[in-house]
């Protein structure tokens, strides 16, 4: 019951936050932090003790009894939500300050609280109708957060696209929950594995939740929404909100009986999202849009793990499945942390330079050492490099997939391509983040805006430091989290609760610690040696040229050029060029732009077609009275014919 009390207190603080958000910003910050702190503590507590909390009250909302439930699986998501929800609010205190944005800061606070509350409700509600209501409120408050700056056209467009796509997804979910309620006879949700007739409903859920999760090719709303939202909102959206889609998929794949091919389909969807997400990221020139595409990639990796766990269930192999699922769940945490860290870092760049275009940045490390270091750490983590957290979760997923290779079974057919493509994704992500770090933070500033950058303040730095600390902690001591993960896995698939921690996990963590120590020692050795022998500063060697300018540096586009050329079949890069010609060429320029291929080549033509059809249909309703009279007469004749024929 203590869990219920703490949750109720947290909810009260969130409501208090909603009330305070308009007039008392400081009180809002406190109540938001307290609420999220309580939620974090509760969810970690539930995970540690492997308990499940359920509460069914007589109190009704929309003539349905309130039914709440917090188990291991929802705790994983709830802990992430409360972490990012708390830290993002602290970050916003400086980033979206009251002085700079008097009006939108107010609404930002309000919808932040509403969004957090609704997402927490989505995670805990165990009634289909209440789930839908919270889901819809969550989607709407996210819309208002994305469009905090509605005076900008691209923000309005992004918000509109988000709203439209999100509602298309909601529509599928309405269908899903309605059909579920119709077949089971009540709105209550819970394990219903014995009802094998429900298995086809899973496809509806996969589509509906997949839109929110941003699975390729349903990701069309994601890049522009994440890029145009204020950065703390992007962090919450990318770190947590899209995970709600994953939550839905995991939740119902655990509660509903699965169609036999579901695991395979999810693995394929996951791997396609992973590879194409990172490929599209490589083609971007906008820092935040690039990060948004990496969300597609990481959602793909998570989906791959979940899908593979489902394949393992089909084969009755607990060990593979538990590894893959634990890896996927850990990756949910990890992605939440490093992606939020990166978005907050990008926000700090945007805050100080006013631009997201990578080709306008460069050399920021000098003015922004903290942001640079933290962004670099986040980049290494997202590229899956040891000794950080991204590697640990990918390693667990790999381990699950390799198990099926080691003890050969038919799952090998899907495991082998997935392993190869996951490694490919890792290498592509590394290339992408080398590009980002190099172009944005290293080298020389390309514009005056970049050279006049300034470091962010403590309010913005502390959340980033906490997130970076989380990345390092999970990287160095992953064995601490095994118990938490496995209790979540057990609430997904009950019989897997006894999976022992792989002995390798402790050794992995030991090798990570040793690597960190050795790297520190190596750094100290080299820097001491360099200082002993004297360090001189000279111009960068440019093939003997003595007047290099910042414009001569490699740009983001040229850096990724080779790779984007390999993938030009899907990227469809547009080139705008004026080649130098003549003996004394005057002007020349080359500009490459990666369009939103799925949106522009598939969705928009379809939308155009629908509009065209509607335009034809609209002609029937042209407002002329005599035509309507004609319709009535035609209708009467038709009715008359029907009655005569049938009688």
């Amino acid at each position, binding site marked *: 019951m203590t869990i219920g009390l703490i949750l109720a207190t947290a909810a009260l603080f969130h409501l208090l936050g909603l009330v305070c958000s308009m007039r008392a910003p400081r009180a809002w910050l406190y109540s938001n932090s307290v609420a999220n702190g309580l939620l974090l503590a509760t969810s970690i507590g539930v995970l540690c003790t492997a308990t499940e909390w359920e509460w069914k009250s007589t109190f009704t909302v929309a003539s349905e009894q309130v039914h709440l439930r917090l188990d291991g699986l929802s705790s994983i998501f709830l802990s992430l939500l409360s972490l990012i929800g708390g830290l993002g609010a602290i970050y916003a205190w400086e980033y979206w300050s009251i002085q700079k944005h008097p009006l939108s800061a107010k609404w930002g606070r309000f919808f932040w609280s509403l969004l957090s509350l609704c997402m927490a409700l989505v995670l805990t509600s165990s009634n289909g109708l209440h789930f839908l209501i919270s889901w819809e409120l969550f989607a709407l408050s996210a819309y208002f957060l994305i469009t905090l700056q509605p005076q900008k056209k691209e923000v309005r467009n992004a918000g509109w696209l988000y709203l439209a796509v999100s509602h298309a997804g909601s529509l599928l979910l309405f269908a899903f929950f309605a059909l579920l309620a119709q077949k089971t006879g009540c709105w209550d949700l819970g394990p219903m594995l014995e009802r094998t007739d429900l298995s086809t409903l899973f496809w509806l859920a996969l589509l509906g939740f997949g839109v929110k999760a941003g699975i390729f090719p349903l990701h069309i709303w994601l890049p522009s929404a994440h890029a145009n939202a204020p950065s703390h909102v992007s962090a919450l959206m990318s770190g947590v909100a899209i995970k709600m889609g994953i939550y839905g998929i995991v939740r119902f794949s655990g509660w509903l009986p699965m169609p036999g091919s579901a695991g395979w389909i999810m693995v394929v969807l996951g791997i396609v999202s992973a590879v194409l997400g990172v490929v599209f990221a490589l083609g971007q020139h906008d820092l935040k849009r690039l990060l948004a595409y990496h969300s597609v990639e990481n959602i793909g990796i998570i989906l791959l793990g979940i899908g593979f766990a489902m394949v393992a269930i089909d084969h009755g192999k607990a060990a593979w499945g538990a590894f893959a699922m634990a890896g996927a769940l850990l990756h949910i945490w990890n992605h939440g942390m490093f992606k939020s860290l990166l978005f907050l870092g990008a926000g700090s760049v945007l805050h100080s330079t006013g631009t997201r275009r990578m080709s306008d940045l460069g050399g920021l490390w000098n003015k922004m050492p903290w942001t640079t270091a933290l962004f670099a750490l986040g980049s290494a983590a997202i590229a899956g490099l040891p000794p950080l957290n991204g590697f640990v979760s990918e390693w667990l997923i790999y381990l699950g997939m390799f198990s099926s290779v080691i003890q050969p079974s038919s799952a090998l057919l899907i495991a082998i391509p997935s392993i190869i493509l996951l490694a490919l994704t890792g290498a592509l992500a590394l290339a992408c983040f080398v590009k980002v770090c190099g172009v944005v933070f290293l080298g020389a500033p390309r514009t005056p805006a970049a050279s006049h950058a300034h470091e962010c303040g403590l309010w913005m730095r502390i959340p980033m430091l906490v997130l970076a600390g989380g990345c390092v902690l999970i990287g160095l001591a992953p064995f601490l989290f095994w118990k938490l993960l496995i209790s979540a896995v057990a609430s997904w698939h009950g019989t897997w609760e006894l999976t022992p921690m792989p002995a390798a996990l402790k050794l992995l963590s030991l090798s990570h610690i040793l690597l960190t120590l050795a790297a520190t020692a190596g750094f100290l050795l080299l820097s001491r040696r360099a200082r002993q022998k004297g360090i001189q500063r000279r111009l960068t*060697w440019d093939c003997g040229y003595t007047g290099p300018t910042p414009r001569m540096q490699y740009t983001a586009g040229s850096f990724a050029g080779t790779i984007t050329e390999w993938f030009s079949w899907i990227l469809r890069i547009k080139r705008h060029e004026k080649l130098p010609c003549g003996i004394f060429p005057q002007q020349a320029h080359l500009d490459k732009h990666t369009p939103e291929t799925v949106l522009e080549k598939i969705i928009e033509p379809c939308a155009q077609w629908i509009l065209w059809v509607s335009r034809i249909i609209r002609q029937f309703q042209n407002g002329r009275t005599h035509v309507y009279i004609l319709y009535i007469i035609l209708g009467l004749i038709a009715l008359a014919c029907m009655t005569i024929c049938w009688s």
Partner: protein
Amino acid sequence: MQILHFLSLVFELLISLVVWLLLAPLLPGIVNKVKAWVACRKGPRLFQLYYDLAKLWKRGVVLSDLASPGFIAATAVSWIAILAAALLIPLGPVNSLMSFSGDALLLLYLLALSRFCTSWAALETGSAFEGMGTAREVSFAILTETALITAVLTLALKSSSLTLSLMLTPTPGAGTLLLISGLFAALLAESCRVPVDDPNTHLELTMIHEAMILDHSGPLLAASLHGAAMKLLLFSVLLVKIVLPLGELSGIESTVYLIAGIVLVCIAVGLVESFLARYAFKKVPLFLTTAFLFCFFALLTAWKGFAQ
């Protein structure tokens, strides 16, 4: 017993550190000797890299005025990451520092970490050439890494294990031949050798790895050259251990065979460098894709072997 075990662990660590740190610079020497011998030249001394490293270690450092402290840190981490990857490989009679299921993946990702750090250091300088070199390095590495993970898959399938010490046991058959061809090509790419990269080139436009370390000097250059030599040794040891059944031999015999194998790999690298020109950059992806395909066919044969 605990103390004895601990002491033997420390002893083995010391031996492998000596091997990896002290013997690695010999390999480029052997390669260069072979190249000189084919070209009927005298060539640099066998221990030339040792002299170079000693000289560089004593020199001061010239840093680009755009470089941050991260330049030194990245160089150091890149060097240590290669060493850490190397320590995961068992060396004949000497066990690896640590051995667990999944260490093969750690090895691959440590190499990736090293690449990330080298690239970071290169981009610190804001030089167009270093940017160019880095772009090529990370692009080609995508194909190399795909080939390497396929090789790991093949070995895992053959040995039913994901522990390096168990995976590196050779099995006869055509699959092994395919695998070593693929891995040899990956070795050439990863250790910046002809036909992918030319370690001796003097034109910045045609460099990959050399372009990335244009602004390294003194002890930093020494660390990065030493790291490259260790990487060559690492891949040579991997290749030899896949082919030769060292585990079945006694300590001294296996050491002798291991050394002979490594020398053979170096000779092969030298011969390739002597008789092949560096490919045009457009052709390199084709070469690396071939490496991947070799590994992939090895995987298919291993799989087929299981099916039977």
